[in-house]
């Protein structure tokens, strides 16, 4: 466990010391603010809960983008710079390396999410917001961020190029949000499986509306675990190449 925290600490340091983390955080928060102002608040009068639902809807997209962008460098950069050898010759296991890398990106995503809290607070000041609704939405965003950073960590482990990593991560992340479309043209039982695998339609909708379902928590946790396991296998396979 100590190795995981050490890796998280170093990676977070790299985000803060370099320009990447700041630029991604600033870009995401700026876009989120614009979308909040233009679409969630809009010109017409709305119920506070509706404003929050709209806010969580595009925040999900922003979280996906931030997760893919933040995770692209995790392993690809180390391989490109030749520093992966420091981790692979340390006593840290491949699993600890994968989890440490993922967690650093996820923590940074959580910090970006925390910095966006002023928007629901503004709604609360000018309207009526149930804290449970805010909690539910942010829980959903945190879970979707966890799953997407795990997916990004996996794609980052496949290549020494961050461009390849981000393109592959972007394609996979986009696919996870349109599975419900494929489910409409698929036959049973594949349609149900595809619908279940959709990041938004089947699972995030509930969080967005203020409802927490255990099945959705299990889903996002499983996806996170699955991609971390794949990352561990990729790291292990490199020792056998």
């Amino acid at each position: 466990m100590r190795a995981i925290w050490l890796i998280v600490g170093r990676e977070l340091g790299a985000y803060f010391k370099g320009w990447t983390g700041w630029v991604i955080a600033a870009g995401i928060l700026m876009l989120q603010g614009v979308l909040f102002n233009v679409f969630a608040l809009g010109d017409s009068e709305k119920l506070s809960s509706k404003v929050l639902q709209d806010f969580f809807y595009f925040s999900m997209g922003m979280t996906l983008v931030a997760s893919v962008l933040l995770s692209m460098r995790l392993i690809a950069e180390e391989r490109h710079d030749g520093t992966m050898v420091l981790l692979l010759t340390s006593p840290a296991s491949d699993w600890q390396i994968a989890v440490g890398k993922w967690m650093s990106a996820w923590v940074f995503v959580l910090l970006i999410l925390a910095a966006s809290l002023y928007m629901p607070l503004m709604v609360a000041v000018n309207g009526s917001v149930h804290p449970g609704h805010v909690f539910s939405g942010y829980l959903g965003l945190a879970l979707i961020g966890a799953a997407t950073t795990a997916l990004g960590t996996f794609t980052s482990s496949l290549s020494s190029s961050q461009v390849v990593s981000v393109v592959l991560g972007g394609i996979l992340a986009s696919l996870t949000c349109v599975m419900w479309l494929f489910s409409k043209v698929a036959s049973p039982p594949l349609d149900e499986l595809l619908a279940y695998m959709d990041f938004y339609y089947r699972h995030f909708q509930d969080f967005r509306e203020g409802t927490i379902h255990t099945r959705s928590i299990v889903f996002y946790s499983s996806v996170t675990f699955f991609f971390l396991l794949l990352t561990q296998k990729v790291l292990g396979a490199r020792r056998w190449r």
Partner: protein
Amino acid sequence: MIEVSGLTKYYGDICAVSDLTFSIERGQIAGFLGLNGAGKSTALKVLAGFLLPTSGSVMIDGVDVIAQPELVRKRIGFLPEEPPLYKEMTVSGFLTYLGKLRGMTSTQVQDRLPDVLGRTGLSDYSTRVIDTLSLGYRKRVGIAQAIIHDPTLVILDEPVSGLDPLQRVEMRKLVRGLGGDHTVLISSHNLLEVEETCDLLLMLGEGELVAQGTEQEIHDRIGTGGRIEFDVRGEAESAAGIVSMLAGVKSADVTGEVGEITTITVVLLGQDRPAETESVVGALVQAGFPVSRVAQASNELEGLFLKLAGNREGAA
């Protein structure tokens, strides 16, 4: 004690290292010597736990690298040819991070850090960001990260490559200083480098161990004795003829001529190289051939390899 038995590594269908068997005593400095592509780096990466072997075993103090990789990695420090560095970190921050990652407590790292910085000549650079350091100092940071956790085995892949002559001398001194406290395994394609630094030579050719032992043992085994160049003034053929008649000299040939100076390359039997060299110089001077330079012949490594390759082909 490092024991390697039948170590083999394939990259797909390509055999990079084949059936390596050797052992290194605690505190010894051993050198993998071989031409480019001989399999040195692959062998070192396997020993460092970075790659897993296709077959064979590696034991470090009785612990198997394959069965207990995480335990073994605590006992190994590895510096690849290109120093792996997090360039945005300071020297002390980088070493502290790696010390902790390799199982040390904060107190242990803080206690060990001054000694490591001192040994690697980095005491005045501990707060510098690595990105601002020269290549020579980056190599030093690379060595510092390899020894910060006080490992049993320190593995250095081409530690002096890319350094200027002054840095090479300092680096050799640094590597030499690691012996005793640590078992050190370095790789090089430079015979002089290994001769000056190592107690034990492991010569690799096309992935196979072609000879091992001290330099003298290898010369004795393959009968080269060592090749020495003598620059003399005067009639070259006569000088070479005189030298070739001496005891302890296997052959003497004229191999170069610049103006009045002729280079004679002498192959010694190598039973007592200093004495044999002195007798050659004495004989030349006595015969009226002033000697202006005595040096180890260049391409000696290639000569040794050609000799070894010839022996192997003959054996096959």
